[in-house]
């Protein structure tokens, strides 16, 4: 015990050890294994460690993989924008308009969004299907003569479903940061003559920027790596990069190419995860710059007033 008390580095090691061991087992080793496999090759159904970049060359030289990668990234960005756009007014309403039992509202929203993943997808398929509720309404009110098959099994259906699934992940961080926005600031802005939109854009948005970014990143990551929604509500061309990775393991028996796709996906996700810290840095820089400009702005009239007084 004395030894531990004596050395602070030992205390730090003991405190960090559980998290470090957890991280090593569940993050570092699996990722290392995936990277190692991506640099290997399959020979007669055996993995051979060749330390080759051939699998990455296969991915980036074939439009099958690059198109799927671009499709997944594009869809991820669309889903991120939509999920944030839908989460913002919802979070704003609960934070600023609901006066009592805010957390009951929050819980109700989260529970509604956290339905089973597969259940959500199948639910949407039934809703949008030929025999679905929407077709029933459209034919019932005479908009359509016959039910249409065009509502599901296309890219739009995939985006709708993924946006629904991603909303719980974008809503929570946005709601949490909105909780920290002091209501008096909004009130002060209103007192100074700012309209409702100006209050939101100039007061609320800068304060919730980090939560919005985190929500968007979560939505992007979920959509980017999603395997099920493109399969269950998409058309054949909706399949993304995650479906190709699964195919390499399931049908192609080419695990190294599958692992290489996985590594590329990890890199894309890491780039996405860099966004929140970058956003924080940028927003701090903007705040600092604004503050400095404000100080300068205030300094000029003060000096002028001083001159007037001297006269």
């Amino acid at each position, binding site marked *: 015990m004395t030894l531990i008390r004596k050395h602070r580095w030992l205390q730090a090691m003991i405190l960090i050890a559980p998290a470090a061991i957890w991280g090593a087992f569940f993050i570092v080793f699996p990722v290392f294994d995936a990277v190692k496999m991506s640099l290997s090759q*399959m020979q*007669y*159904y*055996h*993995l051979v460690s060749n330390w080759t970049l051939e699998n990455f060359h296969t991915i980036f030289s*074939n439009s*099958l993989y690059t*198109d*799927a990668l671009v499709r997944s990234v594009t869809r991820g960005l669309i889903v991120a924008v939509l999920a944030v756009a839908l989460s913002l007014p919802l979070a704003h309403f609960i934070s600023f308009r609901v006066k009592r039992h805010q957390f009951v509202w929050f819980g109700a929203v989260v529970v509604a969004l956290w339905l089973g993943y597969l259940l959500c997808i*199948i639910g949407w*398929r*039934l809703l949008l*299907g*030929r*025999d*679905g509720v929407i077709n029933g309404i459209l034919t019932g009110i005479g908009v359509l003569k016959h039910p249409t*098959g065009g509502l*599901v*099994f296309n*890219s739009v259906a995939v985006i709708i479903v993924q946006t629904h699934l991603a909303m719980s992940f974008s809503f929570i961080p946005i709601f949490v940061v909105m909780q920290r926005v002091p209501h008096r600031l909004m009130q002060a802005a209103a007192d100074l003559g700012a309209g409702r939109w100006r209050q939101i854009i100039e007061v609320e948005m800068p304060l919730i920027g980090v939560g919005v970014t985190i929500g968007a990143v979560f939505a992007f990551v979920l959509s980017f790596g999603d395997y099920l929604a493109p*399969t*269950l509500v*998409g*058309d*054949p*061309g*909706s*399949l993304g990069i995650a479906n*190709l990775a699964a*195919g*390499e*393991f*399931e*049908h*192609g*028996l*080419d*695990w190294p*190419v599958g692992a290489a796709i996985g590594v590329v996906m990890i890199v894309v996700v890491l780039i996405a995860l860099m966004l929140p810290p970058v956003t924080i840095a940028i927003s701090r820089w903007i705040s600092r710059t604004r503050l400095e400009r404000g100080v300068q702005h205030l300094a000029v009239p003060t000096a002028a007033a001083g001159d007037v007084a001297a006269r």
Partner: protein
Amino acid sequence: MRIERGPKKSRSGAIRASLLGAIGVGVAMLVAACGGSSGPSQAVARAGNPKACSSLNLYTWEGEAPASLLKPFEQQYGVPVKVSYITSGAESLAKMAAGGAKQYDVIFDGSEDTLPMKEAGVIKPLDTSKFPEYSKLFPFTTKTFEVGGKVYTLSEDWGKNPFIYSTNVLKTPPTSWAALWSPQLKGQVSLWEDVSLIWIGASVLGYDKNPEQLFHLSQAQLTAIKNKMLQLKGNVRTVWNSGGDLIQLFATHEVGAAQGWSFIYNELKAKHEPVAEAKLADMGAQGWAEGASLSSDISANCEAAAYEFLNWTIAPKGAAALAASSGYTPSNPGAATYMSKKLIEQTGLNNPKAFLGSAIFKQALADPQAYNQTMEEIIAGLH
């Protein structure tokens, strides 16, 4: 390669009584066996005490390990059978190669998986003289599991992946896969996300005239198949990848034609859906056979137990119990004695040749990566 299996059904206690006979023969064979310790590459069962096996670890498909199959064996030998389930043939190969050979004793695999498993060194050849019923099994299924003159997998059951269509959509029964290209099926087709969709194009282009060729298609042939399949654009509405998925697609009238599984067809018929199975002259490589293999790392005692267990699974009563659970056609025609008339007709055991039709059993692919890439290019190009 199937992902979902039929529901479990309860078995009668009569199986337990009949087990004694089958096991008795197996025990006699075991006692007669006097082989010493042998390496994994030798098709000789090692001497071992089946009752000394602490547990027999079975790696099989869902629905293919019913209590009616396991209990009689467990009661006879006092050896518990621990079951793990496979979700795909490739997954089982991956698991076995990654150390599963030490974890599992008996593995169920398809005819297309036997060669990869043998090449990966995770299964060992079987001593077929230890199976009294072996000579009674359908020869057209047993030969699919032979590699280099050795048997690596004991044939258990077989079936085909039929052309299922809605009788509301297609009024005339199709006679060829070419019907999928019909304008009547615009926006009505669902394809299985599996390399077997390649064999639809191969059949339409006539490559199935030489069955062996189907598993060794050249790049030029694969390209020709891809171009042909891409002409299905407009007809293909979606791809499916689980039995439940296709059942729902038919039940909600989202699709009117698909390449499916016998299990799916039987489920749809049971739900009184208006579907029929097309009798095709060009089924191609849509036939499948599966069986049980022994892990290369199995212990001597568990190997002895495994031989007893396998003898029971292919004995008429054991095979009937398996068929009742899975809904698939047993490899032992003798199983019909213990099957209901309905099940016999459902599994095609009353006329196996007619049931199989022109279907060719799947084999290992010469270049799985090329097939997979062609499949992915077809699917990606169909939007």
